């Protein structure tokens, strides 16, 4: 039990740590100070090397140059296409980058053995969760900043107002934040980085494509069967004279209104989907959410409104509104095309409009139908809160359960 005399002397121990107050209970909620400290640690750890900064600079310069070139070369008539492309690109890049960063943040730290030492400090599970969320989101944000030149160029041609752009950018950043949280949640659930990264991207894919597929595939479930009410010339019952006139389209001898008319014996039946019941699936889609957060462009009055011609987003808004409104009464009454009436109208020099509703008026009405971003925002909010709840719960120590096949570290 004796200490060897010839052992090298250790340096004197430092004075006791004094600037602390005692801990109570087992708090888990995030604190501003703790969250910022964890963010700082994460950003320091992920800070680029010199090569990284050079790459980032070159990328920025290239994009800046391209942006300037585009602005110079292109004409000055308004167009919404560049704006829509840039926004979709920013959303897509954000939804790719942020989860990739976040999805290795917890299980990666754990297998590197740097998670548990932090959990042994006064930092709470909430501090760790929100610090990591903030750090990954900020890095994704820094990458998205490189798109700014494109955005400025696109904005100048779009006919949008600054306020509208800020709202849409805000919504995109929220979607990216939610994607980050989902990545973190998978990282806290899956033991291995490969699994959590793929699951995070699958979740993104489910939001982007899954909602569309679900919308399409649930249509038979909400369809109402309607009967085709169309009427046709009864060809068999025509007299020879009438048949002659009908085949040659020469109505000088025969009055079209005298032709025998009939409905088919076995009328065609088809489904009309009540899309107003499943339109929320579309509204949950992040790209639709961006569209629904963008300004409404009227199909009729866009020029007087100082807008660019209706583009991708306007078309999407019109389609989403169609789905939200659902089938009209005339849609549900079934197809009512009347060949006999058409012949009469044609003979009188009128345009036969098919017996259904006024399709063009419907299109125009739906193009300015009120926007519906709230379901999409709600989905994003619920996913964000749910994911962070999982992360905090999984980071709380003492652990009751461990990730399958892992150790505490």
């Amino acid at each position, binding site marked *: *039990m004796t*200490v060897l005399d010839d052992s090298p002397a250790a340096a*004197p121990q430092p004075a006791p740590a004094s600037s602390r107050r005692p801990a*109570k209970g087992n708090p888990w909620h995030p604190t501003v100070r703790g969250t910022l400290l964890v963010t700082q640690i994460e950003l320091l750890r992920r800070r680029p090397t010199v090569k990284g900064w050079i790459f980032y600079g070159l990328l920025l310069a290239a994009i800046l140059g391209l942006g300037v070139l585009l602005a110079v070369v292109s004409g000055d008539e308004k167009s919404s296409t560049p704006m829509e492309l840039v926004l979709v690109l920013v959303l897509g890049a954000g939804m790719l980058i942020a989860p990739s960063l976040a999805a290795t943040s917890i299980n990666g730290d754990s297998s590197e053995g740097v998670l548990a030492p932090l959990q042994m400090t006064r930092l709470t599970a909430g501090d760790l969760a929100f610090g990591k969320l903030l750090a990954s989101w900020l890095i994704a944000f820094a990458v998205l900043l490189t798109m700014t030149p494109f955005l400025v160029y696109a904005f100048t041609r779009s006919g949008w107002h600054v306020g509208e752009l800020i709202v849409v950018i805000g919504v995109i950043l929220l979607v990216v934040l939610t994607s980050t949280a989902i990545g973190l949640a998978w990282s806290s659930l899956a033991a291995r980085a490969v699994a959590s990264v793929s699951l995070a991207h699958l979740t993104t894919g489910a939001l982007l494509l899954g909602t569309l597929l679900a919308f399409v595939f649930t249509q038979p479930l909400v369809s109402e069967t309607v009967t085709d009410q169309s009427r046709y010339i009864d060809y068999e019952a025509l007299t020879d004279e009438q048949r002659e006139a009908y085949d040659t389209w020469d109505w000088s001898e025969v009055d079209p209104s005298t032709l025998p008319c009939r409905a088919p014996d076995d009328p065609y039946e088809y489904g009309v989907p009540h899309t107003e019941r499943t339109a929320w699936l579309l509204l949950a889609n992040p790209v639709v959410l961006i569209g629904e957060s963008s300004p409404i462009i009227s199909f009729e009055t866009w020029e007087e409104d100082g807008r660019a011609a209706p583009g991708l987003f306007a078309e999407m808004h019109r389609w989403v509104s169609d789905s939200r409104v659902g089938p009209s009464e005339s849609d549900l009454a079934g197809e009512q095309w009347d060949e006999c009436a058409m012949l009469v109208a044609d003979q009188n020099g009128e345009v036969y409009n098919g017996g259904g509703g006024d399709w063009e008026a419907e299109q125009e009405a739906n193009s300015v139908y009120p926007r519906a971003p709230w379901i999409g925002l709600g989905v994003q909010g619920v996913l964000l809160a749910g994911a962070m709840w999982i992360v905090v719960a999984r980071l709380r120590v003492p652990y009751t359960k*461990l990730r399958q096949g892992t150790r505490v570290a």
Partner: protein
Amino acid sequence: MVETSTAVLATAAVSARGVARSFGSVHAVVDATLEVQPGTVTALIGPNGCGKTTLMLMLAGLLRPDSGEIRVAGADPRHDAAAVRDAIGWMPDQLGSWDNLTCLQTLTLMGRGFRLHAHEARERGAALLAMVHLDEFADRPTRVLSRGQKQRLSIARALMNDPAVLLMDEPANGLDPRSRVELRTLVRELAAAGKAVLVSSHVLAELDEMVDDAVFMSKGRTLGDEIAAKVADARTRYRIGTLDDALLHRVLAEARVPFDDEPTGAVIRVGSEEEAAQALAWLMAKGVPVHRFGPAGSALEQTYMTMEEERR
């Protein structure tokens, strides 16, 4: 550091009673009971996979025990886990470091995690780096450190919060001989400053020099009094090497001194160092040509080996 030791009062700094924890069908710790008093060093010894690290994690407040009672610095990790973690300096068996942060940054950020003011965390980090002789690496990233240097950084990290209890899981792993001696000295100094130290290691000869008490673990159970008796017995064993083993055996047999016959020489039991001196003098007086006389190796190692035999 003396202040922290008075805060612990007369109770044990760490106590565990009947602690159990299983992972699914694997019973990592079945029944563990131990106490570590302030100002002492206790060894936790056992074969690989006997549950040492799991027990340490439960003591540290990182893992919830299925049953049993734990108190660390008077707090129950079930209700006051934050206080427990705050009172503990934990040196894990896994060496992790933020590889592109410098040593000093690492310690400063850790200190701030313990809610030290930035300048205080920095000063304390610098002082601890000097203590573990890593001051020349203070501003270099931790990825350049060798395994042993990382081990020392880990020790410094464990001391950032000036803990009353120090849990060290395999601290001597990967250390060079000089660093091992330094570790031993450091651990004794920390104990002298009133800290309770629990240290697990496989280098049993190393522990012999360092610990006041030892807890043996096997198959998830801490072994009780009979193993303590074995350690005490092992500490009394002295090995005698002579030029004439036949003479030695005859002399011991005539005097009815019990001894273990060994391939070379013999092993006797002596009660104390004084008794050992007397025994040597007596043997010399009997004309036995003694060329070696001393403790028969590591007491902990001998006990460990008997335990291993029992296991088989």
